[in-house]
């Protein structure tokens, strides 16, 4: 038994590697690849009367997808996802740094504490934000009471609200990979930098930050990619002028009942993202 396990772990034979890869591969095949291929097939079908799908080949869905009216939606989505990722990174890096270098005995508590707010529905959290940020909410009331404002500010259903929602919900997904990679930075390197006369900041910028880059990239990916497809945040927090790609795609499946067009948009998004990821992986390996 343990011999077999050792054989599996040693990976001197390809068969062992394949055996370890197989379970996740099966999962991906059945739960992801086949449904995704189904989407690709659907994207070439025709939307018939009342949204009944007709399996006659057409490229029309793709032609429609490249209509310039969708360009602002794409740019807006990239803008929101990009800014949310950048804010998460700026807010999260010091936290990850603190967790790794300073937290000491508080580290575990802080790590778990980072996840706990998300163990209730994000909708509940949103309602709480609404109580705080609403026109008649706490923040406006306080600001008006102390004379900082004469009119309440409409924080909700604005770009600010969407960014707040995205940052709030994706922050842990940025912080944890950052933390993991900061943990890997050998403390001796930093001490060596100090010994060589580097200041705190120099040591940070010349040693710690470069060594944590894999975590920065992983954290950004885990935030940016889901932000691109996110539709509930914009649906609940955003106003009508902040229509994002995720909303566009889900509306094809729900309200417009135009599944082939939704499938075409999905396929384009997947192709774009996989190509991006592939390039990134090549680049990572070439380092």
């Amino acid at each position, binding site marked *: 038994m343990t011999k077999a396990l050792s054989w599996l772990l040693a990976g001197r034979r390809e068969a062992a590697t394949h055996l370890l890869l197989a379970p996740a591969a099966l999962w991906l095949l059945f739960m992801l690849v086949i449904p995704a291929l189904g989407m690709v097939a659907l994207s070439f079908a025709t939307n018939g009367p009342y949204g009944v799908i007709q399996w006659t080949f057409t490229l029309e869905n793709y032609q429609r997808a490249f209509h310039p009216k969708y360009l602002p939606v794409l740019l807006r989505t990239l803008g929101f996802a990009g800014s949310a990722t950048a804010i998460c990174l700026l807010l999260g890096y010091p936290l990850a740094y603190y967790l790794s270098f300073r937290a000491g005995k508080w580290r575990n508590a802080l790590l778990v504490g980072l996840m706990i707010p998300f163990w209730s529905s994000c909708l509940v959290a949103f309602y709480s934000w609404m109580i705080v940020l609403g026109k008649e909410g706490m923040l406006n009331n306080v600001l008006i009471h102390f004379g900082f404002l004469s009119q309440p500010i409409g924080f909700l259903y604005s770009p600010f609200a969407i960014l707040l929602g995205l940052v709030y919900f994706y922050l842990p997904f940025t912080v944890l990979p950052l933390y993991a990679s900061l943990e890997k930075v050998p403390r001796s390197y930093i001490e060596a930098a100090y010994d060589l006369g580097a200041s705190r900041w120099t040591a940070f910028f010349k040693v710690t930050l470069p060594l944590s880059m894999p975590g920065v990239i992983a954290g950004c990916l885990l935030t940016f990619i889901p932000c691109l497809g996110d539709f509930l945040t914009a649906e609940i927090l955003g106003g009508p002028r902040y229509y994002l790609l995720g909303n566009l795609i889900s*509306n094809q499946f729900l309200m417009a009942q135009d599944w082939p067009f939704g499938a075409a948009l999905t396929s384009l998004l997947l192709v774009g993202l996989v190509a991006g990821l592939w390039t990134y992986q090549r680049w990572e390996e070439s380092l």
Partner: protein
Amino acid sequence: MSDRLSRRGFLKAAVLAPLLPAFLAACRRADNAKVVNFFNWSNYIGKDTLADFKKKTGVEVRYDLFADEEEMFAKIRAGARGYDLIVVGDYLIPRFQSLNLIDPVPSGALKNMGNLYARYRRPSYDPAETTVPYLWGTTGIAYNKKKLKSPPTSWWDLWDPKYKDRVSMLDNVRDCISVAMQLLKIPQTTRDPQDFQKIRELLVKQKPLVKQYSSSSYLNSLVAGEIDLAMTWSGDLFQAARDNPDLDYVLPKEGTYMWVDCLAMLRGSRHREDTLRLIDFLLEPEVGASIANFVRYPSPNEKAYPLVDASLRKDPRVYPTPAVLKTLSLHHTLDSEQSELWNQTWADVKVA
């Protein structure tokens, strides 16, 4: 030592994990009992209706929830089966039918069908009467009495720049396009692309004033004072008004439409007999009245009307006066070409 412990624990858990769902599923498979699987909005039924039904017939109703009709439709369209009974809006019925998803209620199978008002029998959206009307309502304007100097009277008020950022519109093709058509005096039967161009322009023009396109969360915004004016479905607003007595409802002077939520049996139901019994039960006068009392929507059930709370019955916002009722009509039942035009126009408004 502790490493080994945690390792063992983890391995055990890893082995058991795939079995857990199967085990739980096995526990749940007590399907031999008599059940009806009912797919509906949350709280869209009387408080004790299902318990009473079980007491009376011994049939248990499993009440599954959806948050949005279109999501429900997409789920069933994608192939989810096993639901026996769904609540569905009149405008979706032709779509369900075109995909052959509805199992028609056999005529004569329901002894309480006659309890309904005549105007809900053989309706235009379902002339063959394959479904059964459940509750109905109107589309109108909700507003905050304290925040508005004068109550709104017209759909045009939703286009008034002085209410910028205080307005919400239902996120629904049927209602928004209908209102635009009404304001532009375009008949719902149109297929003229120029008409739809005008409709689109009118709705896009309104967009900078609108705070939310929403069919559910706007009610919270109304209660919280985030918005003061909203296109709404009657009963939803009355439920919200329980939490903010300043909210009121008007039917605009241009007139408006009524809609009907229906009970439909899904194709492939394995509990046909009991499902029919449940529908018949929901049509009983006492039951219909208790549902109407709880959800604050008017019931299409004529025999139930006298049993409905007087406060609701006498409220012309809930049960419009006969004079108003005469002016209310159902939405035109769209054929596939029209429905495509409507959907496309609304999609373009959202993207614009």
